[in-house]
């Protein structure tokens, strides 16, 4: 009980002295909340460092990963690599790039697979495995956390 009082007291006092404090606390909490998700929000689309592929906007990234575009805007063959379906990165990537939940992405590919119109990107494993695959082939592109980018790959697009 004493410990609870020691923790609660400063906030109660602060609220009495500053009636607007709860709103400020909430605003601060909302402002810093995304920091806890920074890792999930920091995805980037990468290609091998020696790739000549140009920068991509979100629509171009979506077109390649949804099978609508088979090449980079410059004309070179583009082969997308997914992180494992079900991973946080997979869900975040398709939600941001294509506006679809994982179930909706699966539904889309079910239609394509069962009508002979296409197959989903290859499952490249986790972020480290995807980066390793991409770094070794200039036609591949994948998405990884920005913190993993090093000299073996270059960034084509940032996923907000």
């Amino acid at each position, binding site marked *: 009980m004493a410990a609870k009082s020691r923790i609660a007291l400063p906030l109660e006092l602060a609220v009495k002295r500053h009636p607007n404090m709860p709103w400020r606390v909430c605003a601060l909490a909302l402002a810093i909340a995304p920091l806890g998700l920074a890792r999930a929000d920091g995805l980037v689309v990468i290609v091998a460092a020696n790739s000549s592929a140009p920068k991509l906007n979100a629509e171009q990234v979506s077109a390649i990963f949804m099978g609508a*575009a088979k090449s980079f805007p410059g004309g070179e063959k583009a082969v997308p690599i997914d992180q494992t379906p079900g991973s946080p990165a997979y869900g975040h990537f398709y939600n941001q790039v294509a506006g679809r939940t994982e179930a909706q992405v699966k539904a889309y590919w079910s*239609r394509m697979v069962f009508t*002979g119109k296409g197959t989903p990107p290859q499952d490249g494993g986790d972020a480290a495995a995807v980066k390793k695959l991409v770094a070794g082939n200039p036609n591949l592109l994948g998405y990884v956390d920005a913190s993993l980018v090093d000299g073996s790959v270059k960034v084509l697009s940032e996923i907000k």
Partner: protein
Amino acid sequence: MSKRQHLTLLMACSLALPTLTMAQDDGPKFSFSGFGQLTVAKVLGGTQRPYMEWNCPCAIQNWEYVGVYEKSKGWQADQESLLGLQGSVRLNDRFSATAQLLSRANNKSYRPTLDWAYASYAINDEWTLQAGRKRIPLYYYSDFLYIGTAYPWVRPAPDVYGWPIYAYDGANLAYSTAVLGGRWTVDANVWAGGFNFKNAPYDTRIYYGDPTDEKWRNIFGGYVTLSNGELSGRVMVMSFNNDQRTHKADGTTSINMDGYKTTIWGISANYDGRHFIVRSELNKFSQQVSGFTYNYFLLGGGYKLGDWTAMYTISRYRTAENNLGFAIEGRRTRSLAIRYDLNKNWALKAQYDISKDQSQYDFFGDHRLLSFSAQTSF
């Protein structure tokens, strides 16, 4: 096969097949996938009268294999439930072969049929040549009519999706490319072939009573779809020669249609936003000599919120005066469908339909139908 056995088989396949997928680095690559649905429905009310073999009130929900629910039978799971399995072998970057078996509750007690069997050759990144048996991509949902996870309803509006022939044996040339800086995609396809369906259930059970063969010859069709991920528009036209013969109980054969030239047109426009959905189709069937004309459409609007989707849809079809003296047939349906994505492989759906028979003869009559379906792709 009981309902429990069917559901058990669906779940076992959905769990087991992904582990069977082989992806060798060298040599042919085999892959297996599948889809299925367990659909139970009950007619809550409607027009009371018999039609053909059915004791109505009843509701026809699948025309190809004649799935009809009857009020007198209560809850039924044996009209639309199905299981499909697909196997593919990819020999190299260009050549692959695919076969798909489909087992339907209402087709000879789940006896599998070969709905797809085709070879595919990728000429380049844009052009693909395919040959074999495929479903006809007539309307927007025609070639994935049974992939329940790919649409919001329990089933696409039967008022639009209902013909005796659903597949063709032949070849097609498909084209796909990104345009306008990658923001839009053009998907086009032309196909040619034919299909001979002996004792077609649609003709035999719904219209003639005696075994009736349906043949579509000289099928030539094509569509172009333009989409940007949210908006899509599609235009389709297909023509064929229609033969239809009925083998009567007295041993004689009547020729109902003798190669009548037939043309089907279809346009559709859809919107898939983050929350809002719009579905629309407008189609027309026109046949020379017989003068048969069908006009039919569907229009639906929906809202997605997380794993939930709600959809309200109206659909209608209507024939016109014809040279064979058949009475005008028509139907108008309103549907409310709810979909819940249980996970990436399973969708649970509920749907309530109110359908008015507008035919000028005693056809199936009105119905109110409540349906529940568990649908999967794996």
